[in-house]
């Protein structure tokens, strides 16, 4: 298991945040990319009318810095997994399997449901564990501290119920 110390990783992410602020004048954040992508996909089906939606006037369905960031995360995760030999295709994570058995279909359905709720929640809260949890808290933003608090209250309560 070639895992790095969480403290080393944390320092790395903290420094990366500084780099993002300095070079790009942007805090690291992930959920906006999903909003934009969703808009781009919707545009494939419904055409230009999508751009007129109030939300997509705020967050245009186009590729920009944050979108590239999330695309990069996918690549970075891939490279890291490959380098440590941890890359493997897996339908059902171990923790799920040990509680619910190796059930790919119900895991997929649960992941889909969870994803929908997560997508709604992230945009409702105006950010995720990266945008609020890391970038926002380090800026001492009240919104972000409040958001993270709620992320964990909701998450811990739900996890305890599920498991």
């Amino acid at each position, binding site marked *: 298991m070639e*895992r790095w110390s969480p403290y080393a*990783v*944390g*320092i790395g*992410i*903290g*420094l*990366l*945040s500084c780099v993002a602020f*300095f*070079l*790009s*004048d942007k805090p*690291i954040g*992930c959920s906006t990319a*999903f*909003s934009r992508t*969703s808009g781009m996909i919707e545009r494939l089906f419904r055409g230009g009318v999508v751009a007129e*939606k109030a*939300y997509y006037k705020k967050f245009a369905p186009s590729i920009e*810095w944050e979108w590239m*960031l999330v695309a*990069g995360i*996918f*690549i*970075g*995760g891939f490279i*890291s997994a490959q380098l440590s030999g941890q890359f*493997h295709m*897996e*339908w059902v*994570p171990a923790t*799920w399997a040990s509680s619910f058995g190796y059930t790919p279909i119900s895991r*997929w359905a649960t*992941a*889909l449901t*969870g*994803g929908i709720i*997560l*997508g709604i*929640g*992230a945009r*409702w809260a*105006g950010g995720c564990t*990266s*945008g609020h949890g890391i*970038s*926002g808290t*380090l800026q*001492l933003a*009240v*919104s972000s501290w*409040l958001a993270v608090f*709620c*992320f964990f209250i*909701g*998450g811990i*309560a*739900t996890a305890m119920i599920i*498991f």
Partner: protein
Amino acid sequence: MLKQLHSNEKLQLGIGFLVGILFGFLLQKGGVTKYDVIIGQLLLTDFTVVKIMLTAMITGMIGVHLLSTLGLVQLHPKPGSLGSTVIGGLIFGVGFAVLGYCPGTLAGAVGQGSLDALFGGLAGILLGAGLFSEFYPKLQRGILGRGDFGELTWPRLFKVNPWTLIIPLTIGVLIFLFWVEKSGL
């Protein structure tokens, strides 16, 4: 010179991509692109997620505020309201536990081969974000604005210099992390 750098769109796309690659690399190396690690945190048996987030927070807090004091960066605190931050945050938390990934770690999880992240989580988040955009006008007129506190920061709220908060916070976080480490979590 920085202004020119920031407004160079093509270059910025490249920088964003690079920062993302490093971010994804770190997340995967830290183990937090794994469902088991995230659920372990929410079940309070594995504190890897919190250790990483808190360490990143204090590192970035000191670094960014140093750069800000030197006039090299601008802060961009997100605005918030009780109606959006609290309710959205709780909804996010539920989704977080049900899916077992957050948006960022999801992208990393797809990179490491997690098919539940790719076919379940990714599709779900895109659907959820799309649904939100549909209901946004109604929500915006109602609940999202309730209890608005804008781009408030703790230093502005307490009317103090940020460092007055940063130093005790850092010490407090370090003590907490030390205690977590000692407890074997």
